[in-house]
């Protein structure tokens, strides 16, 4: 009973804090942003501004990681599993490395890896998807069938297979996850573009004699952006999970590089003893996911034109 009460209290505190953070962030941004952006920002609901605040926070952490972290990413500074507090803000991990520093660097590494992976997946998937929709005919058939085949193989097992073939460097991991993710992006991009290529302005551009590349990049891409960006948000988060699952199966990021997914994995057994340590990296992933999706929801809402 007391525990439930305390939980509820903390939940309320967290919700209020999040709302306040969102509100403050929006207030500050609308002050300093240029007029156009400020007007846009003012229309953002609290959840979206909270999301943006969190994203900015993560970006800052990622950029300033070496400054923020009291210890090095791989530095062994104490005994293993030291409790939180004292010299080590969040205690130490199984090798006696500072948990807080690992988290900070984990955010930096994971966010950048996930970003590069997702960006790559989108560059490939979106361009091919738009191309397929634009050109249609045999190219569309070919690409769609290839994507069908790739999607018919379970993603995790396929990643496992490919990574075992090419070896688990960070670059290979990025390439493999991006390849498999790009099939999903392709599907979406193609579906979205199918609705755009029938528009009169595309016909007008075609009749003007515009080249294919320009049609795709200048005419279709900006209009397909909203759903693609929304998908970007989700995919971006899923990359963490992919890395984490790979790590679970023994193919994660090379140690001693800190990444959130592998950190969850490394400390996961602790949760079964009721220890909160593994909740930190998992929470870090969850917070970012929720934040990104808040912003994505807002953008989708704006794109959908609903006014409530």
């Amino acid at each position, binding site marked *: 009973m007391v525990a439930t009460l305390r939980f509820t209290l903390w939940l309320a505190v967290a919700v209020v804090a999040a709302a306040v953070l969102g509100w403050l962030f929006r207030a500050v941004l609308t002050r300093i942003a240029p007029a156009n952006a400020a007007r846009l920002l003012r229309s953002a609901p609290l959840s979206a501004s909270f999301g943006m605040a969190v994203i900015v926070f993560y970006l800052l952490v990622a950029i300033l990681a070496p400054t923020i972290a009291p210890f090095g990413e791989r530095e062994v500074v104490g005994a293993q599993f030291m409790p939180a507090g004292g010299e080590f803000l969040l205690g130490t991990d199984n090798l006696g490395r500072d948990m807080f520093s690992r988290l900070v660097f984990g955010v930096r590494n994971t966010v950048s890896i996930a970003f590069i992976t997702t960006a790559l997946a989108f560059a490939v998937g979106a361009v091919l998807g738009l191309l397929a929709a634009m050109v249609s005919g045999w190219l569309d058939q070919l690409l769609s069938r290839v994507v069908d085949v790739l999607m018919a193989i379970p993603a995790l*097992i396929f990643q496992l297979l490919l990574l075992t073939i090419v070896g688990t460097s960070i670059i290979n991991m990025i390439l493999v996850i991006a390849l498999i993710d790009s099939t999903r992006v392709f599907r979406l991009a193609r579906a979205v573009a199918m609705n755009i290529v029938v528009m009169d302005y595309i016909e007008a551009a075609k009749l003007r004699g515009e080249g294919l590349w320009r049609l795709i990049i200048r005419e279709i891409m900006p209009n397909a952006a909203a759903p693609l960006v929304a998908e970007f948000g989700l995919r971006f988060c899923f990359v963490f999970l992919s890395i984490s699952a790979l790590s679970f199966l023994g193919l994660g990021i090379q140690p001693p590089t800190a990444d959130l997914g592998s950190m969850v994995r490394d400390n996961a057994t602790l949760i079964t003893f009721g220890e909160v340590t593994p909740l930190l990296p998992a929470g870090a992933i969850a917070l970012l996911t929720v934040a990104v999706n808040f912003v994505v929801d807002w953008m989708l809402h704006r794109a959908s034109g609903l006014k409530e």
Partner: protein
Amino acid sequence: MSDIWWMILRRLALGVLTLFVVTLLIFGAIQLLPGDPAQAILGQAATPETLAALRTELGLDLPAWRRYLDWIGGVLQGDFGVSLANKRPISELIAGRLANTLFLALYAAVIAVPLSLVLGVLAALWRGSWFDRAINVLTLSSISFPEFFVAYILIFWLAQSGLFPSISNIPPGAPLAEKLYRTFLPALTLTLVVTAHMMRMTRAAIINLLASPYIEMARLKGMGPTRVIVHHALPNALAPIINVVALNLAYLITGVVVVEVVFVYPGLGQLMVDSVAKRDIPVVQAAALIFAAAYILLNLAADVLSTLSNPRLVNKR
């Protein structure tokens, strides 16, 4: 209606082609894996002599294309061959695993699909409310935790208190009720993993339609919000919902290796991963075939259902 039969036929033909390419791809990928089955099976205990002997025994000295042709020839006659690693007939090896996988997938789906539809509809109905926000944050959090982590948390909460078993150790011949009880936690884990996606799609698909003139018309006919959402928006939002449900069902069948490992549930995913490690090509191929077929059939089913759900496509002018 004949159009639908025609579509199903065409898609099935395409599906068979896809399956064929999948087997080629998997076979090729395994050829590219470092090490061969002989090495993998003998492990560290391998000596050059035992390796050579095992390779001859397994027919690995034949060229790759020959082995592929032999394999596919067998499959076309309904013979999946025997496992390289333990010489058991593959059809027998896989049958039990497949049944387990389908059981768990069905179990999770039976919970997850209605749950996500109801939650999605409620979130759409009370969009922007606290309920909407809370359910959104909850489902998003549940998908942002890695699966095994969700599983551990559930074990901590529900198994350590003795409510449910922490591993799905099902004795052969257990009654259904016991099976359901023992596989509750993995099913719940999977439910948490897939619910968010389906629920969000349901919500989005419905909200997407709320600006439609016919929704306004329904409201102007004096229909209440619930009836507007359930009777007017939902039937028109079925296509995207069906598709995302199919996608998630496919995931429940093909993507649950991690949950199988954590709950010690003998499914097909774990068999495939084990077999990849042992380079047990015929088993990997058979499992890949089943996964790909499941994916293709579910997609086909989704397309057929969304076609049927759309009067425009069923009743031609």
